[in-house]
């Protein structure tokens, strides 16, 4: 039987590429997203190995409900990829508390809720792999992104702490810090930020969602079975 992974933010961008890579590699994927139309489109492209689940990761009750249904209908979950993320950029002085809160809720609290929801299943089967999608802005910072950077740095703390909690249970927890990747989200960044990043990439090119998908597949797969608690930058050398 194929291993099952749950991917949040699976309908578009990096999440879609991760789902595509996993399906191509023989995994079953439960793809969660709030974008119903995009999720349907992803489902029709990826076929039966991809099951679409409408889920707002900030809704504690919905997370409990949907994750329970995924386990009941699809079986034990081996992999969890916390990829769902949003931006609400703005200078600190002008940032509304609501823009801080919503980014915190989706990017960080959402990952917490998903980890908690599947921890029971992974503890019971004594195996599992969680990959949290952070960002290089957690390491470098970026003007106009104090909320986003704080959540992505928070994910690194969550990753390291949870990896310690679960290490002896054969459940691995790692993070990926994507660099400047061409997605819908990065196209929303100001041209100043885009130019700043592009000029600083040693490999002199932006990354593609597939680069992140390959790294996620590596960290979910048994080939990385002795790796836990790490942050893997996938950034063309930007942070090295």
């Amino acid at each position, binding site marked *: 039987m194929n291993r099952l992974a749950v991917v949040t933010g699976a309908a578009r961008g990096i999440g879609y590429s991760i789902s595509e890579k996993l399906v191509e590699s023989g995994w079953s994927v439960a793809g969660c997203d709030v974008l119903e139309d995009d999720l349907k489109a992803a489902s029709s492209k990826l076929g039966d190995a991809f099951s679409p689940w409408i889920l707002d990761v900030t809704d504690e009750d919905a997370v409990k409900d949907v994750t329970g249904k995924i386990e009941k209908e699809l079986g034990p979950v081996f992999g969890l990829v916390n990829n769902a993320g949003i931006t609400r950029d703005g200078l600190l002085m002008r940032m509304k508390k609501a823009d801080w809160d919503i980014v915190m809720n989706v990017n960080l609290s959402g990952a917490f809720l998903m980890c908690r929801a599947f921890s*029971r299943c992974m*503890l*019971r089967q004594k195996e599992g792999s969680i990959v949290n999608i952070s960002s290089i802005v957690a390491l470098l910072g970026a003007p106009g992104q104090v909320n986003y950077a704080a959540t992505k740095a928070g994910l690194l703390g969550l990753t390291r702490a949870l990896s310690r*909690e*679960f290490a*002896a*249970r054969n459940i691995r927890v790692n993070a990926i810090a994507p660099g400047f990747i061409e997605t819908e989200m990065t196209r929303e960044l100001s041209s100043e930020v885009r130019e700043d990043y592009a000029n600083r990439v040693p490999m002199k090119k932006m990354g593609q969602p597939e680069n992140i998908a390959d790294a996620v597949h590596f960290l979910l797969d048994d080939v990385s079975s002795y790796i836990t608690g790490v942050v893997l930058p996938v950034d063309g050398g930007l942070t090295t």
Partner: protein
Amino acid sequence: MSLENRVTEIIIDKLGVKPEQVTMEAQFDTDLGADSIDQYELIMGFEDAFGLRIDEDEATKLTTVGKVVEYLKNKDLDQ
């Protein structure tokens, strides 16, 4: 099998302790060497064995073997 014996069996299985260590007064942490995740898994073991869900607030109060037995005695169990 009595409730006490079933609870004792689960504890021995999950924690790998000797039967004589599992007294009603035994504390899971100090006497039986269970760390916090061991204790969480123990609660999961009781839930699976007795077909019930133990509320997190209740679970944190179940610090000894005797408290678990007492808690389960007060539940409508499918034994």
